[in-house]
């Protein structure tokens, strides 16, 4: 009889990513109703040092899959390892981060295990014997509660949707699982990370430029983002104009963001854009058109020329931060 929860972690640069702690913490909370144990799965090459990090967030048990073939974090090898860890832990629920890698693993795992999957969830609870997850649909225009009937229930958690809470007194017992990887046909040719750039979906502050930028000079928006320690986003029009890369796009056909502070500069507020930033905690809109739809979906608005207002705002924030 499957029981307990398996929290599948992900790492970058020899440390567990934040989403991993969010996943473990979600598991900890869920285990209060489903019962334990809460097992954290760590997969990679040379990952034993990360076990203590998982324990700090309250994992009862830690399974390590340490294999040279997991070094590059390629989806097909990770899927094989996760499937073997699931077999070893036999959990009722598998939690995983809905990152680019996590989504690939979750989708294939559901097919491999013939198990229900709820992707990109912002909440999860147990309702009697079944797991109920809440997930945005239609680019965030709708929230749906879905039930997962089958075992294990696979729930992929949206980054930043859940809180990571350190749990005291947990003494996670560490166990190494020997995984065998074969038939991997995917090979890594090249990896390119944008250094020094804060990922939009992980940022506490997002400053977005829209059509009102009038061109590819985003210097004022970049300066404000830098002053706030945030990331720069772009509306679809700004991306379509070729002013910013596709990876900067916020909206229904781009990225869904949920920062504490979202500042939209020269963004009119098309419905697709509003959907992509609706979960932000506080929204500020700066636009010279007082009739722009964005003003009806913000917390604070300033009507005026962004090229005057944004530098003034940056100066004020720099003053504040000394």
């Amino acid at each position, binding site marked *: 009889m499957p029981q307990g929860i398996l929290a599948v972690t992900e790492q970058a640069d020899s440390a567990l990513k934040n989403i991993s702690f969010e996943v473990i913490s979600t598991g900890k909370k869920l285990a209060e109703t489903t019962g334990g144990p809460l097992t954290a799965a760590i997969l990679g090459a040379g990952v034993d040092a990360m076990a203590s990090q998982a324990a700090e967030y309250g994992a009862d048990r830690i399974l390590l899959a340490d294999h040279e073939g997991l070094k590059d974090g390629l989806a097909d090898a990770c899927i094989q390892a996760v499937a073997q860890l699931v077999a070893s832990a036999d959990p009722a629920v598998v939690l995983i981060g809905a990152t680019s890698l996590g989504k690939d693993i979750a989708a294939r795992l*559901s097919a491999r295990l013939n198990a229900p999957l709820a992707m990109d969830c912002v909440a999860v609870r147990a309702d009697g014997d079944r797991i*109920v997850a809440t997930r945005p649909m239609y680019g965030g225009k709708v929230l749906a509660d879905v039930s997962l009937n089958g075992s294990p229930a696979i729930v992929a958690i949206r980054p930043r949707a859940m809180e990571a809470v350190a749990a005291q007194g947990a003494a996670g017992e560490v166990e190494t699982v020997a995984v065998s990887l074969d038939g991997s046909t995917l090979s890594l040719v090249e990896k390119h990370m944008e250094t020094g750039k804060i990922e939009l979906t992980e940022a506490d502050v997002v400053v977005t430029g829209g059509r009102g930028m009038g061109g590819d000079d985003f210097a004022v928006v970049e300066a404000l983002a830098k002053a706030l320690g945030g990331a720069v986003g772009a509306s679809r029009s700004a*991306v379509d104009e070729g002013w910013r890369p596709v*990876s900067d796009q916020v909206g229904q056909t781009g990225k869904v963001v949920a920062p504490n502070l979202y500042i939209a500069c020269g963004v009119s507020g098309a419905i697709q854009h509003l959907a992509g930033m609706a979960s932000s905690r506080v929204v500020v809109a700066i636009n010279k058109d007082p009739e722009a739809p964005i003003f009806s979906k913000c917390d604070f608005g300033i009507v005026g020329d962004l090229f005057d207002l944004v530098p003034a705002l940056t100066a004020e924030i720099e003053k504040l931060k000394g």
Partner: protein
Amino acid sequence: MEIAVLLKQVPATESMIEISDDGSAIKTEGINWVMNPYDEMAVEEALQIRADTGGTVTVFSLGPEKVAEALRTALAMGADTAVRIDPKGKPLDGLAVAKVLAGELKKGAFDLIVGGHRAVDDDNFQVGPAVAELMSIPHISMVIKQDVADGRIRCTRTIDGGTLVLETTLPALITTQRGLNEPRYASLPGIMKAKKKPIDTRPLSETGTDPGAPMVQILAMRLPPQRKGGRIIEGDRAGDKAVALVKALREEAKVI
């Protein structure tokens, strides 16, 4: 190259979404249904590959009669043949859809399968990789560039905060990401020609695939909390407004 494209018909992204009275689905009246934008990229990429390597492009969709419109659009863009699997009202979750599609794809001999990385209605990110899993072939998601040569495919894909260049063997499945291409518009002759092309319609019950009962069910839908109109910060000059906004963000909203 024999190429298959998986496509879905979805509400256009500019649609206002309302929830049905029983709370388990969206209201469909007045919705403009279109091909999922990522699937348009899939059709475009398949057509570009066909232009280089020869072969055929077959588009697959699972859904009611209405879905034929999206398939016709793909035919008008230049796809060779279209297959519609009719579920006849049977409810299917993402995995069930993948099972049905994989079952039909196995009946062909496709070198490459292309789909969108997600459909912009249920945002599942599931069907593409799940189809690949059920067919025991590799997949690469969120592709922004690809090259096919000598039975292999090399793709650049987006990941959180960067890109990967990956290579794998064919047959394989890839999913599209914005940046891969700009889908063409169907030409008028293309549209005329597409009207005459038959759509191979297969009732689910005759496919030989039993997807089983859906394991994921929508219990309730609701609209997320809506923001009311924001407070407009007034001031004579830009500097005054900036001071007032920073004060509000610091003292009221407590976000900086």
